[in-house]
């Protein structure tokens, strides 16, 4: 027993404490912005935050708020509030919980700091457009929409032109909102830091190629917060250096995220925030480690389109070609590439009622992956925040049955 506890202690990621400090101080800064005279912008998770950082505007993420609401199991209550306001229970639970939260200042942190402006980039979904329109009316503040045309099979020249023109409009919008001139030198620094942060985050995730993997997708879901919220800051770069060091140390000491890693799995879609611990324990009990996921890599997946010496101009393409803004067949290719890179035995897909662009197409991806690689997929029907759409018994049975399939496959291979 004592040995067991010791193992558990050893597996804990030490950087976690630092992460919590940074996030706490970030939220305190954001919450006290009114007193310190700083402006607050609400921005979508896939939106270009770098110009905000360069303008010293504090970015706040309603989606990150949604994740916090989900993790603290306050999602159902807040979703119900939105439903009382007339929002359908079929709508995205991030949006519902955030919309339900605004008038009551509820949730785990007593509501988000009030925004001075809204920045909505539709590269992740059309839902954010509607959600931000709701909040623009509620707070009666300006809304900037960065419209990134969907790239089913490619990124057209006209789309590139359009997004580039909007980047200039975005700068103009920020100048108007702050009454300050945009500082291009500062922007260049922020751009460099953003790319460095993204490279480090990818390097952290890449550590999962090792056996045993020093981190799981559940760890990635947690440590993701900085690359989303504070991309483009020195703080983020420093933090991921620290985390990368720790991961390298764990690799050299063969410390795995899961005590006895037998099966390596790839997670697809957003986390089920209110069941993270339960799922993590469930898979660990089956000696399965979710070594990687399609979600947390989305924040560094389009780095190849961005040039460090010309961040502002090239980010038009980078932000337009992120994981969710591409065709289902391209997504399948990326899933296969990840499955091979991390040498996974199976894929776990969260069919997420809240996220249609992420979930529709999963059945086809499942089929394409099976045809090309033979890797089996487990489909879990749930929702990222609204726990009413989670059936523990059903999910548990399906996980157990899936692990049996993997065991059977391995026995056949060993024979």
């Amino acid at each position, binding site marked *: 027993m004592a040995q067991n506890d010791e193992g558990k202690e050893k597996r804990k990621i030490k950087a976690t404490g630092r992460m919590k400090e940074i996030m706490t101080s970030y939220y305190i800064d954001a919450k006290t912005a009114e007193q310190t005279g700083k402006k607050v912008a609400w921005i979508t998770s896939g939106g270009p935050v770098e110009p905000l950082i360069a303008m010293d505007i504090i970015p706040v993420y309603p989606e990150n708020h949604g994740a916090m609401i989900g993790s603290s199991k306050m999602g159902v209550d807040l979703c119900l509030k939105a439903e009382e*306001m*007339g*929002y*359908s229970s*079929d*709508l*995205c639970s991030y*949006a519902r919980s955030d919309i339900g939260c605004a008038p009551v200042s509820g949730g785990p942190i007593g509501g988000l700091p009030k925004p001075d402006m809204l920045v909505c980039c*539709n590269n992740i*979904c*059309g*839902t954010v*457009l*509607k*959600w931000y*329109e*709701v909040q*623009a*009316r509620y707070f009666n503040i300006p*809304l900037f*929409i960065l*419209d990134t*045309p*969907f*790239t*089913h*099979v490619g990124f*057209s020249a*006209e*789309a590139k*032109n*359009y997004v580039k*023109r*909007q980047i200039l*409009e975005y700068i103009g919008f920020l100048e108007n909102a702050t009454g300050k001139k945009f500082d291009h030198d500062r922007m260049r620094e922020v751009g460099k830091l953003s790319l460095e942060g993204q490279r480090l985050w990818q390097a952290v995730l890449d550590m999962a190629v090792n056996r045993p993997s020093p981190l799981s997708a559940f760890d990635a879901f947690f440590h993701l917060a900085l690359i989303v919220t504070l991309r483009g800051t020195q703080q983020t770069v420093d933090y991921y250096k620290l985390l990368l060091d720790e991961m390298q140390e764990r690799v050299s000491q063969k410390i795995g995220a899961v005590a006895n890693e037998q099966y390596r799995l790839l997670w697809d879609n957003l986390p089920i925030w209110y069941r993270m611990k339960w799922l993590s324990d469930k898979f660990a009990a089956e000696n399965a480690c979710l070594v990687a996921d399609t979600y947390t890599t989305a924040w560094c997946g389009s780095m190849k389109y961005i040039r460090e010496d010309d961040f502002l101009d090239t980010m038009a393409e980078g932000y337009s070609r992120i994981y969710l803004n591409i*065709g*289902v*067949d391209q997504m399948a290719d990326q899933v296969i590439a990840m499955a091979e890179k991390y040498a996974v035995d199976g894929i776990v897909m969260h*069919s997420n*009622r809240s996220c*249609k*662009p992420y*979930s*529709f*197409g*999963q*059945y*086809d991806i499942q089929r394409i992956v099976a045809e090309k690689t033979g890797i089996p997929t487990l489909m879990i*029907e749930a929702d990222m925040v609204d726990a009413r759409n989670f059936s523990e018994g059903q999910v548990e049975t399906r996980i157990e049955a899936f692990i049996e399939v993997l065991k059977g496959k391995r026995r056949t291979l060993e024979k």
Partner: protein
Amino acid sequence: MKIHEDFSKIIHDPYGYAANLNDEKKIVGTVCSYVPEEIILAAGATPFRLFGSFEKTRLADAHLQSYGCSLAKGVLEDALAGKLDFLDGVVFTHTCDTMQRLSDIWRINVKDIFHLDVILPVKLDTESARAYYRDVLQTFRVELAERLGVTISDDDLRRGIVASNRIRRAFGRIYDMTAQAPGILQGEELYMLDRAGMMMERNRFADLIEETANKLSENVTNHTGASAPKRIFLEGGICNYPDIFNIIEESGGVVAGDDLCTGFRYFSGLVDETNPDPILAIADRYIRRISCPAKHQGTTVRGERLVEMARERQAQGVVFFLLKFCDPHAFDYPYLRDTLEKAGIPVLMVEVDDPLQGEGQLRTRLEAFMEMI
């Protein structure tokens, strides 16, 4: 008034009609009111709107989860079942998340016909979006011509515009007359005209709809109407249920106007025939037209225009028909409801799914609403 039998024929057997038409015409499937049909007409083809049928979606269920709307599933089902073999191609425009993924799934799984995406801007209220809109339509013109093996000249485009505008003008007159003399057409008849206008060969349809408008105008002055029915305005997206119009009428209401994407929204607004740049003229109509909630014209525009339309049609109440799992409409509903109520216009919301469920309950709710307003 009795409407021409060709309208009801096509409504009752749209695919049979299309299969016959396909002997002489190329047919291009569309799934959205943003598909620029003028350009398809300019290519000598017939745009044919797909609504899906009202059947079980066994094949589509292998591609779309239970939380996909019945429109997406119905259309995919028919495509996978081979019911749309008359199509030469299909055109998807970017509107909502579901349509965007449906386009991918279609492209991957339906192989025998051409497939084109027209990735329209989502915001419609800036100059850069307008320029992009024009660029995208120009690219579509080139790609479509290639797929159909034709060329599309500016004069072809102008002919397409004129044909579409004829239809829109006639519908404008018809809708004005139904607002002026509610009941002059039954709701179900208007529904058939709307639908037929999205499927029938357009020159033939233009002749028929003009004839219909002319006949109606002869009747409009003598029309006495039923005993003071309640004037209802319909708001929402897809409405696949002719029965709903009957239920409204049987509950003591009459449809005085609509903003449905399968109704008046499809036909509203004209393309400027004098613009030397026909592609820009087409783009401008879509930019100005009352928008689908998946598009952005400003944060309060839809509410303001809905109140305007309801007042113009002297509606005593607005009934929302929201298709289950249609996110853009569901997001706008609370705000539109509040805006209408502030303007003193009562609202009823009905969530619909394919096939229509709980007709009895729907009837009761509509009857109660009619009594209240």
